[in-house]
């Protein structure tokens, strides 16, 4: 009897997870295997040929002079995004965690870009950032000569990072706020009684106690930064030169613009391995810098 109930429970459980499982298999696992398979082929869409080419695409990857530049741009974008996003989110969260009037208004204000359509947000910023756009007109009005943000090598990447940070910083801010409010107030009281100043309290109590959230947000932000595409496509199309051609944009160019689907698949295998490696490293590191885990 109990065995029959158990079996029924198990079937019910499988039935409940089946839709999710089917989606994951159809849209994640099968494509993953196929991408690895495609990466071993030369696939010419126009000529309708699909021929096995062994490791040719991987050899091309090793010899492609653009790849080091693309990886450097990807690293620069990810590092810039993670550093600016996390420190700004934490700063905003600490400021908005004070018991002051009007904090709710600011919380809503900083969070609202998260719910705006990504492409709409980016297109508006493109108008703002163009040479005769809103930002330079403002700078002009106060007597400053703004650079051509999206067209010069030095500022294009910075502009893309800032646009992306402003879009998503609200989400990390809310996560940090929740973590800050989970810190027991008696710890702060005890520290102040012992004569600790604000910085010591933050460094010795707040930071260690919100470290699981820092880990979580940094994983989400790093992985998200490696998938950046729409912002690049709308703002810079990878330029000037190849200075903002990040890995996902480069693989889009190869597969969908240059019709090299096989090589595009090879680049996505590389992207997959990078994301996997980063996640494993961060997960291992948690033991070293996450103070407590529940």
């Amino acid at each position, binding site marked *: 009897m109990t065995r029959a109930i158990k079996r029924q429970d198990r079937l019910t459980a499988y039935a409940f997870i089946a839709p999710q499982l089917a989606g994951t298999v*159809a849209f*994640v696992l099968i494509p993953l295997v196929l991408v690895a398979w495609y990466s071993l082929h030369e696939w010419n869409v126009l000529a309708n040929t699909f021929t096995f080419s062994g490791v040719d695409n991987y050899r091309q990857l090793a010899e492609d002079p653009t790849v080091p530049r693309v990886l450097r741009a990807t690293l620069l974008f990810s590092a810039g995004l993670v550093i600016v996003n996390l420190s700004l989110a934490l700063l905003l969260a600490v400021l908005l965690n004070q018991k002051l009037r009007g904090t709710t208004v600011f919380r809503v204000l900083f969070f609202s870009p998260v719910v705006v359509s990504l492409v709409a947000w980016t297109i508006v910023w493109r108008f703002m950032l163009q040479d005769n756009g809103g930002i330079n007109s403002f700078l002009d009005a106060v007597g400053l000569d703004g650079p051509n943000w999206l*067209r010069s090598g030095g500022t294009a990447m910075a502009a893309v990072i800032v646009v992306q940070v402003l879009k998503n910083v609200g989400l990390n801010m809310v996560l940090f706020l929740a973590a800050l409010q989970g810190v027991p107030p008696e710890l702060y009281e005890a520290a102040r009684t012992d004569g600790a100043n604000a910085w010591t309290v933050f460094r010795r109590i707040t930071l260690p106690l919100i470290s699981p959230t820092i880990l979580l947000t940094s994983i989400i932000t790093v992985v998200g930064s490696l998938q950046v595409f729409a912002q690049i496509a709308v703002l810079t199309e990878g330029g*000037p030169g190849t200075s903002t051609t990040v890995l996902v944009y480069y693989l889009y160019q190869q597969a969908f613009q240059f019709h090299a689907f096989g090589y595009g698949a090879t680049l996505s295998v590389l992207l997959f391995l990078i994301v996997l490696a980063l996640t494993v490293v961060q997960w291992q590191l948690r033991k070293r810098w996450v103070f407590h885990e529940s």
Partner: protein
Amino acid sequence: MKLRAAIASIVLLVSVAACGGAEQGPVTLRMTTWSANEAHVRLFNQIAADYIKAHPDVTIKFDALPVDTYTTTLTTQIAGGNAPDLAWILEGSAPDFVSSGALAPVDDAIENPSELAPSATALWKQDGKLIAYPFSTSPFGVFVNTDLLTQAGQKLPTGADWTWDNAIAVAAATAAKTGKQGLVPRDFDYKDWTNLAPIFDGWGAQAWSDDGKTCGFDQQPMIDAMTFIHQAIFTRKAIPGPGVAADFFAGESAMTITQISRASLLKDGKFTWALVPLPAGPKGTYSVIGQGGVGVLKQGKHVDAAKDFLKFFTGDANSAKLAQFFPPPRTPQLTADTLARSNPLLSKEQLQSVVIDGIANGVVKPSHANNAQISQAVRAALDPLWTADAEVPAVLKGVCTAIQPVLAK
């Protein structure tokens, strides 16, 4: 995640297509285009309706895709097993489509092929076979906002005075006086450099040699032409700089270089305008044409039916109708009288000097196999040119370093 989903949908489309197989009975033909212009679509639908009268088992669908991602969308549809039956092909990707074997030869699907101008079909032939029909052979000309010129006290130079040097001088003076922009090379936007060909061809400059194997960017004619363009932008301020948006057809610039098929944008124009041929360059007078072809995809489901409709769509009668938007490749229709009948916006003189002479003597905009890859490499290597202190010869040398390996392939 997006990418994975995209690939998965391709996989699904492939498997769905594989189950489809050959169909019998009613046939639906799909033609991809890059024009959602209401007047164009109305004419296409009218031609389709005429065809369906004699072929009641056929339906025809025109699928307008955005032009800036047209070829990308088309190849993705082909990769996904969802190839259209007929497709417009931009001249830039003509070599890729013509040489790949993606299109079925259409010699037997064209009425009176002897009428087609050789300069119009050159790009669309392989081994003597016509692979796609150049339905639009549209020369570049200069549209001028004469109201703005008058306002700035400028006169449009004519005859032997219509040179690039004078054109740029007038554009710069008009921009300075009116606060509008001077001369806009339309659709260039510091990305699609092939739209600079209407300027640099005047110096006899070539992006690459005729056999496509040798880079021409570091040659003297190109260095001279690009130096002229660079000065026109940064010193003489006649061409708006990078990142500055200005639309001639909205009255925001004194002049624009574009194809005459854009004249329809002036239908409700709020200013008086003129259309003149490209100014003379140091090498004398010349003209440049942009083309659009239409072909039948081998991977489409109804190749024969598609060819039959192509014959109707491009035949003498419909070619004459299409001529009001797209200058036809058929020589008997290339007379000022015929074109004037369907182009009320342009005078006979404009049609003769810009369209008919342009098609007869025109050089087609640059194109090459692996077009997207080469264009992207040129664009990236040209980016350093678009600053005030750029060293033109050094940048152009860099362009050749970037593309020579691909050209030599």
